């Protein structure tokens, strides 16, 4: 007899729910390899398969959840029973429930590459070793490589609910990541570089190594700058991080709980006219693409902001019921250990017409922000206050000038979106739930000495 599929397991578990009980089972299996190189040798090689199940029960409007990192019969039963017992203690909520089929067919996305499954361990080791070498060779000021790694994952997941949802997805992914150390004149800086793909031949050792070296060396000799107001030009990577925060403020959960800046702003201009933002997990170029969301519903293209005007919020099944709308297929979950929540899958700004260099050429007084720190502590997604550490290059008279570090840039999320003057043409997907693109923002406070 063939081994049961993950969907078979999920459907079997939800089949245990009797009358008056709604159940959802999420089952995942992931095979991972990670190779770290150090000084030309393998520092560590990890190979492992992990499996797990998360069971959510809703009975009489009360929700319970349990998970386990195993899929044997006893564990499945124990997990189901524990979730059922836990449901006795949740508050009654008329909107609680599991997903029901909504007639939207999942996009046909092929995210699985056999080439990755067939990729030999020796070749993975070779990539990691080569990455370390390329990083060291990229610049004479690179003095060491803190880590150089190759990692891959073959993931399969399935969701079933007692209301008839039955969906599965699988995907492959791999990446190279390097952290370099660069020194000059007694000063040390670090930098990271990466390359991401669905199969190994999409990875670029050169790009990951060169980026790691560039990020470390470009800040050598950097100093604080005096406090002033100026135009900030955000590098694509920084923009993507910022979009992640904006996406969180547009979640139906934040809106319903009174924690969104934009709760009462539907159809208002919340950003500059240059801003058009969509969340689209059906875009196969996104590394976070997926045909189904964490509740097993089809993902879809959700236009959030068009020409600066707020068009939509993101909803999962629960928040949609509570708001009296339909799910936007925006359920996300951190893995089988957690219940689904609402979140963006793959945010993307509509790109503009000009490159970063062309945008910089028009700015007399600015800061090209190449990295930000403290995004989690320094941004209050509830109030919108925004103050993060920044590093990058000063822009003077249309040209990039001296490197700057240990400054903060401050504004509010609301003002930042309104003050966007231009979106670059350099859209690139990054290994996060947003694509990067250059973004110019006027009138930002840079605090320094």
């Amino acid at each position: 007899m063939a081994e049961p599929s993950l969907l078979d397991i999920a459907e079997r578990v939800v089949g245990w729910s009797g009358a008056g009980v709604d159940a959802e089972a999420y089952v995942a299996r992931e095979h991972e390899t990670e190779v770290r190189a150090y000084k030309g040798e393998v520092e560590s090689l990890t190979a492992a398969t992990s499996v797990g199940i998360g069971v959510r029960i809703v009975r009489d409007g009360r929700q319970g959840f349990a998970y386990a990192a195993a899929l044997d019969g006893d564990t499945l039963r124990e997990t189901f029973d524990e979730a059922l017992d836990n449901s006795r203690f949740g508050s009654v909520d008329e909107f609680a429930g599991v997903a029901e089929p909504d007639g939207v067919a999942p996009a046909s996305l092929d995210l699985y590459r056999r080439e990755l499954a067939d990729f030999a361990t020796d070749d993975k080791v070779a990539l990691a070793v080569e990455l370390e070498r390329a990083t060291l060779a990229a610049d004479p000021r690179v003095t060491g490589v803190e880590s150089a790694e190759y990692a891959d994952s073959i993931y399969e997941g399935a969701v079933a609910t007692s209301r008839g949802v039955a969906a599965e997805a699988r995907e492959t992914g791999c990446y190279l990541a390097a952290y370099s150390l660069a020194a000059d004149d007694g000063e040390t800086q670090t930098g990271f570089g990466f390359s991401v793909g669905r199969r190994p031949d999409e990875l670029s050792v050169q790009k990951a190594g060169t980026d790691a070296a560039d990020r470390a060396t470009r800040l050598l000799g950097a100093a604080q700058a005096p406090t002033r107001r100026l135009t900030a030009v955000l590098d694509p990577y920084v923009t993507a991080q910022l979009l992640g925060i904006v996406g969180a403020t547009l979640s139906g959960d934040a809106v319903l709980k009174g924690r969104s800046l934009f709760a009462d702003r539907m159809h208002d201009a919340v950003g500059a006219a240059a801003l058009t933002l969509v969340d689209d997990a059906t875009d196969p170029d996104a590394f976070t693409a997926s045909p189904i969301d964490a509740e097993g519903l089809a993902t879809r293209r959700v236009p959030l902001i068009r020409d600066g005007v707020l068009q939509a919020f993101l909803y999962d099944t629960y928040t949609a019921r509570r708001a009296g709308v339909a799910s936007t297929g925006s359920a996300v979950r951190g893995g089988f250990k957690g219940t689904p929540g609402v979140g963006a899958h793959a945010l993307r700004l509509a790109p503009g017409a000009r490159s970063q260099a062309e945008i910089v050429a028009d700015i007399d007084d600015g800061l090209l922000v190449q990295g930000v720190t403290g995004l989690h502590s320094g941004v209050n997604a509830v109030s919108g206050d925004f103050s993060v550490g920044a590093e990058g290059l000063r822009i003077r008279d249309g040209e990039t000038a001296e490197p700057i570090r240990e400054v903060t840039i401050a504004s509010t999320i609301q003002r930042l979106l309104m003050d966007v003057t231009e979106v670059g043409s350099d859209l690139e997907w990054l290994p996060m739930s947003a694509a990067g693109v250059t973004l110019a923002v006027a009138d930002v406070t840079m605090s320094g000495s």
Partner: protein
Amino acid sequence: MLEADLVNRTLAAAMRTGADFAEIFAEDKRSSSAVLDDGRVEEVVSGRDRGAGIRVVSGDTTGFAHTADLSAPGLAAAADAAAAAARGGGGGTRTVAVSALQAPPRIEVRIPPEEVPKDRKVALLTAADAAARSAGGAITQVSARYGDGRRRILVADSDGLFTSDDQVRTLFSVSCVATGDTGMQTGRESAGRTAGFELFDLYDVEDMARRAAQRALTKLTAQPAPSGTMPVVVGPGGGGVLFHEACGHGLEADLVAKSASVFAGRVGETVAAPTVTLVDDGTMAGEWGHYGIDDEGRPAARNVLISDGVLTDYMWDRLRARKQGRASSGNGRRQSYQHLPMVRMTNTFIDNGDANPDDIVADTSHGVYVAQLGGGQVNTATGDFVFGMTEAYLIENGRITAPIREGNLIGNGPEVLTRIDALGDDFAMGSPGTCGKDGQGVPVGDGTPTLRVTALTVGGTAA
């Protein structure tokens, strides 16, 4: 969890390719948690994680495999995979013989959380919700979380080590949102100990909720934080996270070995103001970063890292210590059996000075008083850091005055150590934290007395 015989056979299989060292780390963890948000108990959650990680070291190469299958065939397969990954040169067989399990005294847990009925855990959440909301109509949202975990671990290695530990932790936190003229402001309180449900003999959840609500309400009246470089006084327990992040990580031997630390090669040198003593102490009973043995089977220890301003030692795990021909300092930790251990902190703190904390403030003509730092980020290679301030005030003419909101502190850890010019005698531990490194989270504690840093950059939004 595992019998000596099975351990010996598994270790022998792991050593079959002629490795230098092999280790089994088995773990059985049960956890429960409950979350209240928006006036509702969202759900009670139960979790079970059980499995083993097998590590094989050959020369400078580590092979690692983990499995959720603790049967003899499951362990044999993982041992095989780890051995193949390490690919030792020599080959041949080696007998491994661990004898009777030698476990340290068990950490005393008075009220095992798994024996506490779920409705009592849920009642804590609803009590906190009610207490926070009674603090005033401006409190518009409350969320609270209860969590407990019991983690039984077993460590055996090819040097004959065979030991185990039973670690119980309990945590409670409450967050409030207050709404007013300055928009929405947040306040948070948390308490966590390496202990059972007796945590709540020490902490009253209603008190915690009222304090969290007060924080949020205070911030409604707060003015935007100033910008610029100024003296910063950090209150007791409020700033330990800064020293954990911006100094502690640089004292981890794995980062030092790769020269990814500003403290590399500086043992014996003066790296801090002469009054500063920095300690990492896994033996502090009950504290969030406490344990009996680390995740490589070594007993937790008290390690003085900086003594009266002089760098005395780094923190070590087994692998790094072995290369240096010294003992581990009991700092080898891992998030779970699915992870390789590395050098991690436990409870990290700046020890007491002898100044009166009131005098420290009175001696500061202008600056910022930070009662509670928020999350932060640090570059361990340079020591550069950014931290949010979740509760802070202006200091004007030697007095703590208006509350300020939403500012960051930005600076450099090693520089801060040299710029501490006053240390109070009012040491306190801070909030329980989860330290992230290389994608692995482990529970850690931190602490400080009141202290003053002569100059730090405050990044606020005030014009």
